[in-house]
């Protein structure tokens, strides 16, 4: 196994919920509730889950947009809070919505030049060379540098966001649903672009998505998240071929047209995700799990090994094998 680039240990992020007159504190949303994983240099780790399961919160806590409540985030063995600015600029993010991630009052050139300007120490000419070089890398022409974001299509904007993220030689990039806001015809182009630049620059990705087809295409390993916890984490191939956790199976069952090819009993989920303010006792998935037993309500399952690099948090692994 290659070097561990990013390590997250028992990470927790709670948001206080205040309601009513004078904002009385009512409780906390457990957006991220004890998440641990490692990302190895050069790999793509997928993070899958329904909306509201804490994927985006997790990514923003890693990048210190929100302070964490507990746990560790280590980048190359050092806590992210101790990184200086040049080291911190190695951790970056591509956002979901290319309409929101570019400043509407700023030309493309400025958007891509901004990282260099913030970092400082670059001459005007150096910045210009870098910007044009990056535009070329993502398949855009120098003429695009003079445009405003609203003059460009969604795919072009996402290319610009990618050019911007490549500034200052990043190492670890969080892709927060980078293609879910795009047309299907554009999605493949952007995914291939992400793959190409990963190869060229030796980048490491944490790839967040709710689209299982996209994740299967681009990821080496996949983590499945539910209500702020990781339910299963495994190499992509193993996860699709032999999912162990009932929730993963339910997600795979929901892929359109996949029902006939499943290696396991199809699970159709009913109801909504429980409230993250007051998650179910024991296993969080038990309220919607067709196999739930007595033990699931009392004990919270830990991630346990069930194959090569395959971990699943379920009490009933032995029963569900197959």
């Amino acid at each position, binding site marked *: 196994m290659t070097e561990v680039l990013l390590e997250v240990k028992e990470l927790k992020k709670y948001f206080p919920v205040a309601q009513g007159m004078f904002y009385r504190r009512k409780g906390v949303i457990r957006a991220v509730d004890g998440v641990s994983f490692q990302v190895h240099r050069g790999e793509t780790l997928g993070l899958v889950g329904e909306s509201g399961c804490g994927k985006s919160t997790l990514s923003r806590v890693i990048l210190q947009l929100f302070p964490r409540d507990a746990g560790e985030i280590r980048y190359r063995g050092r806590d992210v809070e101790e990184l200086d600015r040049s080291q911190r*600029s190695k951790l970056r993010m591509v956002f979901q919505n290319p309409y*929101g991630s570019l400043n509407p009052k700023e030309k493309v050139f400025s958007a891509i030049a901004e990282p260099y300007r913030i*970092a400082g120490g670059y001459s005007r000419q150096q910045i210009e060379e870098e910007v044009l070089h990056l535009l070329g890398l993502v398949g855009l022409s120098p003429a695009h540098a003079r445009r405003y974001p609203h003059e460009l299509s969604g795919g072009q904007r996402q290319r610009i966001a990618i050019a911007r993220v490549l500034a200052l030689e990043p190492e670890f990039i969080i892709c927060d649903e980078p293609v879910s806001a795009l047309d299907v015809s554009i999605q493949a182009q952007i995914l291939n672009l992400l793959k190409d630049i990963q190869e060229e620059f030796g980048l490491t990705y944490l790839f967040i998505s709710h689209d299982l087809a996209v994740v299967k295409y681009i990821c080496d390993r996949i983590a499945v998240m539910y209500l702020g916890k990781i339910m299963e984490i495994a190499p992509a191939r193993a996860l699709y071929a032999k999912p162990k956790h009932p929730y993963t199976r339910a997600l795979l069952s929901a892929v359109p047209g996949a029902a006939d090819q499943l290696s396991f009993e199809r699970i159709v989920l009913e109801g909504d995700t429980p409230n993250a303010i007051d998650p179910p006792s024991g296993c969080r998935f038990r309220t919607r799990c067709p196999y739930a037993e007595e033990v699931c309500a009392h004990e919270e399952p830990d991630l346990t090994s069930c194959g090569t690099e395959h971990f699943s948090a379920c009490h009933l692994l032995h029963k569900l094998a197959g």
Partner: protein
Amino acid sequence: MNLLQQFSGNKKFVFSVMVLLPLIVIALFGPLIIRHDPLEMNTKRVLEPPSTDFLLGTDEYGRCILCRMIIGIRPTLFVAFGGAAVAMMAGSTLGLTAGYIGGKLGNVIMRAIDIVLCFPPILLAMLVVGLWGTGIINLLLVIGILYTPHFCRIAYSTTLKLRKAEFVENQRILGASTLRIVGKTLFPNILSPLIIQFSITVANGILLESGLSFLGLGVPPPHPSWGQMIGKAKNHIVTHKHYMFFPSLCLCLTILATNLMGDALRDVLDPKLKESH
């Protein structure tokens, strides 16, 4: 369509420019074109009706009304534009701070702003003038303080909407300073509604200055201003209607034009606002 075409196609904009542009030119070059001394009294020719010598007649001290109106534009516009500029600078700075940094500081700022908003403008203006005395700079500051809350609220609400935008988050990931984010990333994005508010504030400033001068709290005599002339003219309204008519007409036209300018700016810069009306 570019901005210039949009503005030139807007009737409100064209009208307001046709009123305001000559006004500003006259304000700048007024002293060069007047034929009589606006301050010197001539007791032999008081309250004359319009004639070839005095185009708009004379006031109760025999001074040329037209000349006094021309000279009176300058303090009015200076106070209104200056006050609006002060209000815009103070208001947007406070609003951006409260909106982006938020927390306790934001609460303190916004509650202070609410308190200023509680006072009827003319009363607060009278209070301030009463405390500091009359004078052009004081008037300008009064208008600045009075209209700071409007700018502050606009800056605050638009900043609140934008502070969680992804392009702001990206700046934070890159380690941009708060000053850079507020000044370079957020400010250009909240500028349009502030510009619109600016022109509305200029109209209100003209009105407020005239109101205070009418009450005798504005531009100190013998220097003229429109509001002050209207105030003096009210004593002669029955016998000499022309004295009050011309300053009032000009004041109305100017305020109308400035307000229409605000409307036109809103139409062009913020089309979404127009739809909701």
